[in-house]
């Protein structure tokens, strides 16, 4: 590892570039899928696009270019657990909105804790101990 100030500066520049690239790619994919959802009816069908692989499509290419296919494949394995947690989160959001008529912003924001809880519990149960 090079500790020279020029090397450190260059590394920081590469990192910033990488973050900017991810922000642009993520923003484009998330906007595109949510726009598609806005266009479709009925709402239950449009909702399918609320669980589109937007972040994955935006990052997998960049990850493969930077760290290789094996690294991206390991990420995808964990993504399955994230998707299960997302399913629990979306189901609870829909129940609270339809049955109890909770406000959408507060419900979706508060239940993010459920996503974190489920995702990390699944990760610990399936991958954490190995």
């Amino acid at each position, binding site marked *: 590892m090079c500790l020279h100030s020029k090397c450190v500066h260059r590394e920081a520049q590469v990192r910033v570039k990488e973050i900017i690239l991810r922000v642009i790619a993520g923003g484009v994919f998330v906007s595109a899928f949510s726009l598609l959802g806005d266009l479709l*009816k009925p709402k239950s069908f449009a909702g399918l696009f609320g669980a589109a692989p937007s972040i994955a499509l*935006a990052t997998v290419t960049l990850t493969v270019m930077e760290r290789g296919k094996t690294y991206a494949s390991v990420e995808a394995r*964990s993504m399955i657990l994230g998707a299960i947690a997302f399913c629990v989160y979306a189901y609870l959001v829909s129940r609270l909105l339809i049955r109890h008529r909770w406000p*959408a912003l507060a419900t*979706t924001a508060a239940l993010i804790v459920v996503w974190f809880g489920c995702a990390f519990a699944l990760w610990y149960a399936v991958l954490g101990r190995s």
Partner: protein
Amino acid sequence: MKIKIDTTGLHESKWYEYVVRFAFGGTVTALAGVIAKHFGPEIGGLFLAFPAILPATATLIEKHEIEKKHESGKHGTASGRRLAGVDAAGAAMGCIGLAVFALIVWKELPQSSLLLVLVEATISWLMAAVGVWLMREKLWRRLARKIHTFHSVRAVARHPESSVDRNSARGREK
């Protein structure tokens, strides 16, 4: 229920709502990368399925429905929240497709080309999500029909004389 393309939703959205979605999506994607760098791909991978679209979409659906009902002099909070809930139920079904996408990338990526895997995984995501939605629609319709039949049979069993009256009235009409 028929699937339709309706552009009126686009006119309801304001420019800053698209900016918020872009910024939120971009931030989550960048964060997923930073988390993967610090904690490794196993933790970072979880964030590839982070709910980045649903919170903003549900909030906007509720807001637009309230505005629409308000224009016609009605109170649209309840129907706005119900519509947002229906959208979230769709997202819950879409998660099965998301898991299929991840499964294909996990299994196929080490041996195949990136472009091929991404195309295959995206098509599989769409097919799985739409398949689950269609199946649920079919089951729901069948269940609704059964419930309707059950209720009409029970109504006849409780008040047989009224059904006899109805039948005789029908006979007289003929």
